[in-house]
């Protein structure tokens, strides 16, 4: 049983933001690096599968040397090894292409990603990766039932309004894991220290291919005006919205 977990070191915004002089990025002084919250759940899920079924948990990330902190965090939780891919643009297509190259060589039974990253919030990488690997995928997974060597897994997917979609999916598969699926373990200091000693396998991205987007400018949007807060029962709110739409359309 081999599980690959694709993780990301996110950059969290504080209360205040400044942009770099070229207007293309947020000034790094205003960003705090951290392991993407969803990815700690994905890692925990992989560790629990390993505890049950044996095998290996392999971490992969795209990013600079600094992003190894996120890998080490997951290594301290108990993952077996880690691969970091250098030189990747950060849009989801570029990331997925770089990941696909490494992940396909691993021949994993399951590939876990977080549903989304807390900084970009695009929820695209996992799906793009599945497409490139030509694997089935299930998104927003809140439960994984899988037996070692089985050809399928049964997973719960979270839908809106508290609904749950239970699906059977062929494996290998890509699952994007939702927060709350488990309780990620903490790493004690000894494990953290040991993880610091682990050698991380660094690869270079092959490159090529068009990015999903290019950043032309980052700015704080102008604040709009005239927002109306609508109170009342769902029916009243719906009626009010309908009348606003009608008014505006005329």
């Amino acid at each position, binding site marked *: 049983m081999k599980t690959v977990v694709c993780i990301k070191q996110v950059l969290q915004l504080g209360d205040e933001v400044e942009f770099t002089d070229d207007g293309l990025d947020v000034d790094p002084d205003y960003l705090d690096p951290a392991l993407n919250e969803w990815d700690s759940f994905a890692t925990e899920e992989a560790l629990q599968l390993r505890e049950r079924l044996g095998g290996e948990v392999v971490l992969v990330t795209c990013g600079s040397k600094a992003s190894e902190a996120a890998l080490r965090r997951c290594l301290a939780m108990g993952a077996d090894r880690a691969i970091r891919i250098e030189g990747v643009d950060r849009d989801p297509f570029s990331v997925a292409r770089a990941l696909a190259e490494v992940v396909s060589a691993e021949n994993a039974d399951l590939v876990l990603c977080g549903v989304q990253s807390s900084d970009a919030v695009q929820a695209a990488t996992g799906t793009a990766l599945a497409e490139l690997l030509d694997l089935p995928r299930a998104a927003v997974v809140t439960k994984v039932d899988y037996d070692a060597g089985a050809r399928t897994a049964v997973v719960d997917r979270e839908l809106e309004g508290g609904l749950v979609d239970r699906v059977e999916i062929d494996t290998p598969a890509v699952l994007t894991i939702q927060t709350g699926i488990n309780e990620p373990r903490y790493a004690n*200091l*000894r494990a953290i220290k040991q993880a610091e000693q682990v050698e991380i396998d660094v690869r270079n991205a092959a490159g090529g291919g068009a990015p999903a987007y290019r950043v032309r400018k980052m700015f704080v949007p102008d604040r709009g005006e005239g927002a109306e807060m609508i109170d009342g029962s769902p029916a009243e709110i719906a009626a009010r919205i309908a009348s606003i739409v009608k008014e505006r359309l005329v």
Partner: protein
Amino acid sequence: MARDPKHDILFEPIKIGPKVMKNRFYQVPHCNGFGSEKPFSQAYFRALKAEGGFAGVSTEYCSISPESDDTHRVSARIWDDGDIKNLSLMCDMLHEHDALAACELWYGGPHAPNMETRCVARGPSQIPSDFEFLTYAIEADKDDIRHLQNLYVAAAKRARTAGFDIVYVYGSHSYLPQQFLTPYYNHRTDEYGGSFENRARFWRETIEMVKEAVGDDCAICVRMSTDMFMGEAGTQLKRDCLPFVELCDDLVDVWDINLSGIAEWGEDATPSRFYPQGRALPWQAAVKAISKKPVLGVGRWTNPDLMAEAINDGKLDIIATCRPSTSDPFLPKKIDEGRLDDIRECIGCNVCISRWEIGGPPLICTQNATAGEEYRRGWHPERFTKAKNADNDVLVVGAGPAGMECAMILGKRGMRRVHLVEAQDDMGGTMRWIPQLPGLGEWARIVNYRKIQIDKLKNIEFIPNTKLSAKDVAEYGAEIVIVATGSYWSTDGLNGATHATIEGADASLAWQATPDQIMGEGKELAGDSVVVFDNDGYYTGVSIAEKLALEGKKVTLMTPLGTIAPYMHFTLEAPNQHRTLHRLGVEIVPYHLPSRVEEGVVVATHVYDEEGHEKSFAADGVVWVAQRRSNEALFRELKDSIGLDQLKVEGVDSLYRIGDCEAPRLTADAVFSGHRLAREIDSADPSLPLPFKRERRMVDDASVASEKAEYAALYAEASLA
């Protein structure tokens, strides 16, 4: 971060008499236990507030003459050149931060016990103090009155020499000038008593004389209480205070308006248990409405929105704070910098005041462990040195107030990694439930402030829902282990009165409980009636009694002490707490100790009954607020079962314990204990506090020789007679 423009008003300068305050933040007179006899402690304590942005900072009450000596409590004194010299240090250090220095000239009249000077104070009438025992004043005749007024003038001149910018003629809290104004103290029939004009005469004349003497150089401030809450006898806003403002507005440069007399000065220094912030605003606004001079006023102000509102609404000109400035001397700076969530807000517990009331000890603060330690331990509340052993990892077990404080300070001292591990699902320990007791909601600030700070410190990780065994701790991988597992209430009646358990006491039974069980675990006692046994003497017993009474139970509060919750006398919470319990019909049984309990009955004896007659109190349930004990099992296992040697083998170089786990005490002590260890984590032996600097007279050979010669001569001369 930048200041929120809606707080700009707080940073506008304001002219008071011949002086200008650079912003609207002012530290009102308050004691710290240092007076004029610990000049460095005094100066550093006050200067820190100036550094934190306060534009004006006052002394505590400052005695103008040996006739007004408040010993056993510590006031400042401005009696002679020595005092001038000592207090000038404070003035100089305030001036270095462009802050104005104020001196609160004080004469206590009948309230001054004069235990050190053995003088007798003078007062308007010969009525014993309502604040002190066995303390009387001389009823002042006209010569005495002139003498008293000259004392104020001479003291004001000394204050000017020392470098003070603002000089008070202090009346609030029932001191001399206000005694003359108040029928309760003033029974005179001459021109200094009776009508308003007569009762106001002493104060007005004194202000006039002081103004004449120093008014060109110093702003004249009058501190007046605008209601003593004593009905006709006490000072009243409309009858006395507003006319007094009209009478003296031309002489006074700034009014300091507050509430209360001295016997219940918790109406001024309001416990959060009873009053929200800004409680005196209606009175202050009434003065502001008729005065042409700036008005400053207290209100346990911690919220800048409310401060700005008070000024914008024309109710105050200057935000005066005492406790909030102790809890966070950097309150103004943090508002200026828009760092509102860094403000260490006062919780209104009045533990600071308890030290003054007890008399003697330096002030402490529940929220700010550095209060009073600025000089003697050299602690700055906002600055930290990198620990010499910062390359170590630390495990703190237990996220109560002590553990949180310790982890936070270790984080600020740059330790490589600090893990704060907690068995429960969030931080706080017992301070999660204490704020749920009636009236104690603001005490949650203890936890909230630290939580926010810990969250900001990247080298601290909080790990909830994790109960570590001794083995887990040993193998955790930390070089430094700090056990902060708190304390619990005894479940078997073990108490500080008998040092023994009580027959039948067993809180595992359904009809008995401890505070931990009721508040922490939600245990409910069946039945209508309950006896709460309290030998703790502070807030827990009365609060549990109040809570149960509010829930509709018939509550008997029994204590072997002479009064319930005696420590709440020191925190000024006692009067209103008594009123609350009385209103709720709680029966108070002092001087009684249960000899045994059975289901349905508590059998007790009067502690002074030599024959031990038993008295039965019917009760469906019993709550034991008897004493606390440290949760020290983990520490003992680590130290005794695993042993320090084996811990070393595992890589644990040092093991400490802090807070209630060491010994259950005040929350202020628990916080201090965590703070102290973190400040001294790189000392030779962090388990022992480093010595602090003691300001005291030191004997040296020269002074020994000269004093001995002087006294030999003195005694020799006396022996001839």
